[in-house]
């Protein structure tokens, strides 16, 4: 008791010291141009949620066309205007714009910025025990570049010629020639501008994440004591740092081709009967550059979701994560392999078959670390004391989607099978399950799990359960049937497809109608989340300090976390983050900041030896405080 009071006094004295330096920030500094990582994280999250609804509604519009090709869409005219043609059908060019923008928005704006931006920002300083990011200013800039990029991309939706329409991969020559299609004009220019801003934002964010994780860990937080979330954000940031500049270079060359008449990607080409002056370019070159980013991007999207799942599953199974080091190793393996498999997106570009088999071999190796992760999730769940919070359900859902979507990756990674399946709905099914839905489930799990820390309130559990089951069943109903249409040859990005119907219009309409109805229902179910999220921010039940009885450092902060995260000293770390249900321990979890000397009843022999190090860890306090005053 006495130690507690002295500690409180120290805290008070400490706070007093700083009172004259830290004046209360005004509204703009606090909520708009904030340098606080927690506020920036919330800004990213809310932007991500808004973008998800935009991206989702675009997909619903094109699902209407696919599922009900005969449907009168006159009622959409108030929203879409001229994009509904005279016969009351969806404009064909606009259909292409819809799929392009759906992909771009979901991959970059929702699952990269909304997921990685939110949780890297929120969790890195809180879980490693730092006051803030290495550079709060660059962090703020990173968000505002993202905002600018969002504004440009959003405005392109309202162009008369429509937004970019060449697919989210914007392959030249379609994207390089403004006269190629309406969407290749101003829409494409805005797409490139927006993505350049987005890349700058991502790089600034990523540099900050890496720098913070390496330099600002609290005393005792060695790399092998970091939660797996932090490891996953670390690898994600490295992937982004190494791959986004390559996309920038691809985009720059494309801009030169579009606007200055160079021939990097354009070779001898006729358009509308006119020969263009371009000579000697190579559109395949663009594909190489694009997919060198494009493939790591898949893992940029997925790894944070996997990391958060590890954390949530261990917490709610009340068991240590199975194979902590194997998890790190497999994430490292995925990160390395991510850079040397890009050409499996290009098997049908006339690539040398030998080169194809090399890339096939490398691609199939990814199954190994992925399987290690899947097994580790399942073995962590095995005989655990499972607590089914909404976050836990979404995490288990992620594991399910990761497996069922990953298995088809082995089929698509095969360069011979890919000849048949390339650009069919089989591919759409594969990546929507393994990358889209799995990452989305990770995002949702993260929101449900860390909501109490973000807003100091709890989300409604019952609504969470309804949201989960509607989404889980819905996602499988939407994407599973796509495997069948895909194997049968139904192609991606087609406005309508009658070739396999022997001239009849109704080829695949039954399955497509089923998928569309499921998609509409699943999308509508997200309204439950939308309501729950915004209602709970203001009216939710007040959260306790550690509602999930978790071990990591963020739960040692007060319920309403202020700037600087801990009112007193930053806690030291003595143990790994997964001491759940430790034999002999009094409670079923031991937080990371509890020294081994305080838990003699549950220590293993080698942990008793670590008690000797505790003095050394504590003695680092002065150095740690010093580093914040530099």
């Amino acid at each position: 008791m006495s130690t507690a009071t002295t500690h409180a006094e120290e805290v008070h004295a400490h706070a007093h010291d700083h009172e004259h330096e830290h004046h209360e920030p005004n509204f703009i500094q606090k909520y708009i141009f904030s340098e606080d990582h927690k506020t920036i994280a919330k800004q990213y999250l809310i932007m991500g949620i808004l973008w998800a609804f935009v991206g989702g509604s675009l997909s619903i519009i094109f699902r209407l066309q696919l599922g009900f090709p005969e449907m009168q869409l006159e009622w959409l005219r108030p929203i879409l205007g001229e994009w509904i043609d005279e016969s009351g059908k969806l404009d064909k060019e606009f259909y292409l714009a819809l799929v392009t923008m759906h992909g771009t928005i979901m991959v970059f704006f929702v699952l990269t910025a909304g997921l990685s931006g939110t949780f890297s920002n929120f969790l890195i300083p809180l879980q490693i025990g730092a006051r803030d990011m290495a550079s709060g200013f660059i962090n703020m800039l990173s968000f505002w570049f993202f905002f600018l990029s969002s504004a440009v991309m959003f405005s392109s939706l309202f162009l008369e010629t429509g937004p970019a329409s060449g697919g989210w991969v914007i392959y030249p020559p379609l994207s390089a020639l403004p006269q190629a299609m309406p969407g290749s004009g101003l829409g494409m220019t805005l797409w490139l501008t927006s993505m350049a801003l987005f890349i700058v934002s991502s790089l600034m964010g990523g540099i900050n994440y890496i720098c913070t994780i390496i330099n600002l860990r609290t005393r005792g937080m060695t790399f092998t004591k970091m939660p797996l979330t932090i490891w996953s954000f670390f690898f994600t940031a490295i992937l982004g740092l190494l791959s986004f500049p390559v996309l920038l270079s691809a985009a720059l060359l494309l801009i030169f081709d579009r606007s200055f008449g160079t021939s990097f990607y354009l070779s001898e080409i006729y358009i509308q009967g006119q020969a263009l002056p371009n000579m000697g370019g190579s559109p395949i070159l663009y594909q190489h550059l694009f997919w060198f980013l494009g493939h790591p991007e898949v893992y940029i999207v997925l790894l944070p979701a996997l990391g958060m799942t590890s954390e949530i599953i261990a917490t709610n199974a009340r068991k240590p994560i199975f194979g902590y080091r194997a998890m790190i190793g497999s994430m490292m393996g995925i990160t390395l392999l991510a850079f040397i498999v890009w050409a499996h997106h290009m098997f049908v570009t006339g690539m040398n078959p030998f080169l194809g088999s090399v890339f096939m071999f490398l691609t199939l190796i990814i199954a190994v670390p992925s399987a290690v992760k899947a097994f580790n999730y399942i073995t962590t769940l095995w005989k655990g004391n499972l607590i089914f919070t909404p976050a836990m359900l979404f995490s288990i859902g992620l594991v399910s989607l990761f497996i069922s979507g990953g298995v088809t990756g082995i089929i698509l990674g095969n360069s011979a099978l890919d000849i048949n399946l390339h650009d069919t709905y089989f591919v759409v099914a594969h990546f929507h399950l393994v990358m889209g839905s799995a990452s989305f489930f990770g995002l949702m799990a993260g929101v449900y799990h860390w909501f109490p820390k973000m807003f100091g309130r709890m989300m409604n559990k019952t609504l969470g359960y309804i949201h989960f089951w509607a989404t889980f069943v819905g996602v499988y109903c939407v994407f599973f049937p796509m495997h069948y249409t895909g194997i049968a040859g139904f192609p991606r990005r087609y406005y309508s497809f009658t070739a396999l119907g022997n001239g009849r219009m109704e080829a695949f309409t039954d399955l497509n109608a089923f998928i569309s109805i499921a998609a509409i229902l699943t999308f509508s179910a997200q309204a439950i989340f939308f309501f729950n999220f915004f209602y709970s921010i203001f009216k939710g039940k007040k959260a306790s300090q550690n509602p999930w009885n978790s071990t990591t450092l963020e739960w040692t902060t007060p319920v309403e976390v202020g700037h600087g995260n801990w009112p007193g000293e930053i806690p030291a770390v003595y143990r790994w983050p997964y001491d759940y249900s430790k034999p002999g321990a009094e409670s079923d979890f031991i937080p990371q900041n509890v020294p081994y000397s305080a838990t003699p009843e549950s220590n293993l022999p080698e942990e008793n030896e670590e008690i000797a190090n505790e003095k050394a860890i504590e003695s680092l306090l002065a150095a740690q405080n010093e580093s914040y005053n530099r």
Partner: protein
Amino acid sequence: MKKPEELLAANETRSVNPKVFTMWLFIVSIVMLFAAFTSAYLVRKAEGNWVEFELPNLFYYSTVVLLGSSASMHFAYLAAKKDQFNALRLSISITFVLGLIFLIMQFYGWIQLVDENVFFVGNPSGSFVYVLSGLHGLHLISGLIVLLVALVAAFRLKINAKALTQIKICTTYWHFLDALWVYLFLFLVFNN
């Protein structure tokens, strides 16, 4: 199991200045940008239909100038370490001027290319030279801005033996821009 000394040593690596570290990460992203361009160059060249031409001889001289600027940058760092403020200001100024001369020479190098009938628009072999030297030039301009900021700091005595972070960042970036050009230049010489 780690001994206390080892833990302390581990902590020392942790206290790498975050600003210097950020600079290095920034450099990594620039390396990836140019790695992408030079890889694209090789991939494209392997496809044939590749016009060959002489690199402007001014590029040889400008490379020497840039190497010289790196030397004066190093002197600036040494001067800052020893608190020799006049030498520091002088060396930064020399570096800045050499950097400017380099840019001007690059520009005249482009004029030489135009005289050779190698244009930005045309066969990609020529376009690549413009893109690589142009983007390097753009980065060099950012380097000049960093130098100017350092020069102002040097006049305000903000750079001294006890506050070396800024000059360290500046020096690192400048040496990197120098090395980047040497790489690009040798790459062009051997692959043209």
